[in-house]
């Protein structure tokens, strides 16, 4: 009997709230019909049926937060709608109890499938407690005790149980991870540490070596960067004539002088990327394992170096924001990133990233993809290059930009077309603002 599961509607989505049922049990359903509305961290979206049939069961009540992949409804031939043996005992006794609790739990037994259909009454404590979103921390008692005994912060642990519950296995992983990080001044520092989180070879700390434990941000970065090792990359570099871009920037800043604000070359590049991405939706995409996700929004992450490590705050809907807003938002986000005041929301949901090392005089570099994004742009410093123009040698400021691409998402020609358009946009800066 086909189940309808909570779909993944955005790359950052871990669960969705089924905000409203639009079809009732017993209603005939056609492929493409909207069964319910789902609220994600970004938007309210439609839950569509992929099957023809009859809506036999609603497994969650409206307002329930449901992890992606968990069944929310059953579409069948209609034979099991009335007096369904599985739901009946529960609904009679406790109307609040509907959904099966376990994350990877099998579908609720079809009522006629086996003699045991009614034999168990699943008593999903989780479902009874939920109904609200799952912003609060869910942990098993054992996980909580273990974390307490080992002085671990549960908030830093990702739960793998139903509805994100932190279980013993998750805490044990965290303990193992911490223990594998060597401690400064530890007598045992001479000994090879156990397996570090990235699977790096054991390291030996000698006399005078300083062992620096990883902070939380660094840890996340290490994990993400290690993940990106698995991405089949390729690199494309383009040379951009930024004569007009520099002039354009000067012109804009002159106009802004009264307001005291300024735009940078990087702001122009970010906005240029957003415009180019709008024209190349296949680049504004994520790798989803066995699917591609083409993002509706163009959210550009900007790599910011902070004392705590690399952070990537996100400028949401960069294609719809004027240059001045991108500039002010970027300034503000970067400032708060350096002060350590970014929220998680401000660092998630990116669909493309720009990394700029031009201020360090780096001519050209390649950046590591920020999974699951499909591409990242590495921006070097604009340098004067001798160019022959009208038979004379002139110095022209040129910028080298390098696109790192996930080959699973994009082929060379498509990525090259994007880079060609981006180059053209940066070379004709009016296109950045119109």
């Amino acid at each position, binding site marked *: 009997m086909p189940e309808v599961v909570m779909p993944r509607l955005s790359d950052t989505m871990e669960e969705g709230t089924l905000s409203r049922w639009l079809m009732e049990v017993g209603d005939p359903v056609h492929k493409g019909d909207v069964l319910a509305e789902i609220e994600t961290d970004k938007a309210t979206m439609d839950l569509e049926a992929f099957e023809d049939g009859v809506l036999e069961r609603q497994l969650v009540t409206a307002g329930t937060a449901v992890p992606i992949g968990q069944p929310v409804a059953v579409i069948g031939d209609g034979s099991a709608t009335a007096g369904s*043996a599985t739901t009946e*005992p529960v609904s*009679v*006794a406790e109307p609040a109890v509907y959904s*099966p*609790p*376990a*994350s*990877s*739990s*099998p579908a609720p*037994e079809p009522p006629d499938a*086996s*003699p*045991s*259909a*009614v*034999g*168990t*009454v*699943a*008593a999903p*404590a*989780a479902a009874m407690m939920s109904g609200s979103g799952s912003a609060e921390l869910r942990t*098993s*008692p*054992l*996980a*909580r*005790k273990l974390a307490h005994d080992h002085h671990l912060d549960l908030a830093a642990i990702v739960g*793998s*149980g*139903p509805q994100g*519950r932190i*279980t*013993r*296995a*998750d805490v044990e992983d965290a303990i193992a991870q911490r223990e594998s990080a060597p401690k400064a001044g530890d007598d045992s520092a001479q000994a090879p540490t156990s397996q570090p989180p990235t699977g790096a070879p054991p390291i030996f700390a000698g006399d005078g070596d300083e062992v620096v434990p990883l902070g939380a941000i660094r840890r996340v970065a290490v994990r993400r960067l290690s993940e990106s090792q698995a991405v089949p990359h390729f690199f494309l570099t383009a040379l951009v004539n930024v004569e007009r871009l520099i002039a354009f920037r000067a012109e804009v800043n002159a106009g802004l002088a009264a307001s005291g604000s300024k735009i940078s070359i990087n702001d122009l590049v970010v906005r240029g990327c957003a415009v180019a991405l709008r024209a190349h939706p296949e680049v504004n995409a994520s790798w989803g394992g066995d699917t591609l996700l083409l993002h509706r929004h163009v959210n550009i992450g900007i790599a910011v170096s902070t004392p705590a490590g690399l952070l990537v705050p996100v400028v949401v809907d960069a294609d719809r924001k004027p240059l001045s807003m991108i500039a002010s938002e970027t300034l503000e986000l970067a400032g708060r990133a350096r002060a350590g005041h970014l929220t998680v929301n401000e660092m998630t949901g990116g669909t493309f990233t720009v990394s700029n090392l031009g201020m360090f005089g780096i001519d050209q570099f390649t950046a590591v993809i920020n999974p699951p994004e499909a591409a990242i742009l590495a921006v070097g410093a604009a340098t004067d290059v001798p160019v022959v123009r009208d038979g004379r040698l002139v110095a022209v400021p040129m910028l080298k930009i390098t696109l790192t691409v996930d080959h699973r998402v994009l082929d060379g020609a498509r990525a090259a077309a994007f880079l060609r358009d981006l180059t053209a946009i940066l070379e004709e800066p009016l296109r950045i603002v119109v």
Partner: protein
Amino acid sequence: MTEDRSDVRAMTFRQALNETLRAELIRDESVFLIGEEIGVFEGSYKITAGLLAEFGPARVRDTPISEEGFVGAAIGAAMLGLRPVVEIMTINFSLIAIDQIVNHAAKLRSMFGGQVSVPLVIRMPGGGGQQLAASHSQNLEVWYAHIPGLKVLAPSTPADAKALLAAAIRDDDPVIFLENLALYNTKGDVPDGDQIAEIGRAAVVRAGSDLTVVSYSRGTVTALEVAGRLEEEGISIEVVDLRSLRPLDRETICASVRKTSRAVVVEDDCLSYGIGAEISATIGEGAFDFLDAPVRRVAAAEVPLPYAKSLERAALPDAAALTRVIHEVLDATRFER
């Protein structure tokens, strides 16, 4: 348990009960049996086979269909020094005698300030799965397990049937002795000689490390069957057989869950307010910090048990249902096989 392992014989649950009754009748002159059809007809389930012939009508008394009357008579006899063993044909009929059991047998010792005791055993066959229809298929153990002043025993093996029945007959308080009909023909090794179980002691009947299944009576048999099968999948199940529902051996239950961190209760009564609810609460109180997942219960459906065989089977908990719930608990805790 006091042990006198001169020998061990394989026998059925039924035979173990019959032999124990006989041995107790021989051992103690004050022991007598009373109930409907237990003499000439030798019991609806033949538990008292041969006993009228051997011990005569003064010690094996047939009664009219009058549960309240003969339970009351037995209580009076017990107060005056005899040790009656009552057979109520099925636990379902005990409801007619429930005032005698709950308001008298259970209360007398304390209301008489300890001046009398009621050394009474009431054997109650019962349980579903026999196509006896709703009013003859109930698991009413929780009704009695709820009452202070009673002891409630629920053996799962022939050896326990013997050792717990002997302990019940020798106990000075009223004991409800539950016999699940589905167990009567099950076989097991039973040690010869005097075997007296300690009332109120659960048993770890199978040791394991990954998850504890708590059950009693027929449910323990199901649990052991499932545990055996799951072992082949690399899952190590510990089975706790309660044996006594009152008093309840909370320590053995909690000690097991503290070790495994996961628990499932399987019970033949229905879920709401059932034995599993008490076990769950016990684990919550005694092993909370060791739990990695909510305690789950596998119980009968909340319906009057249907007569139709397929529906009756569907309403009772079985090995498949228990297996499924065990998998759900393991999956919820990222158990790696």
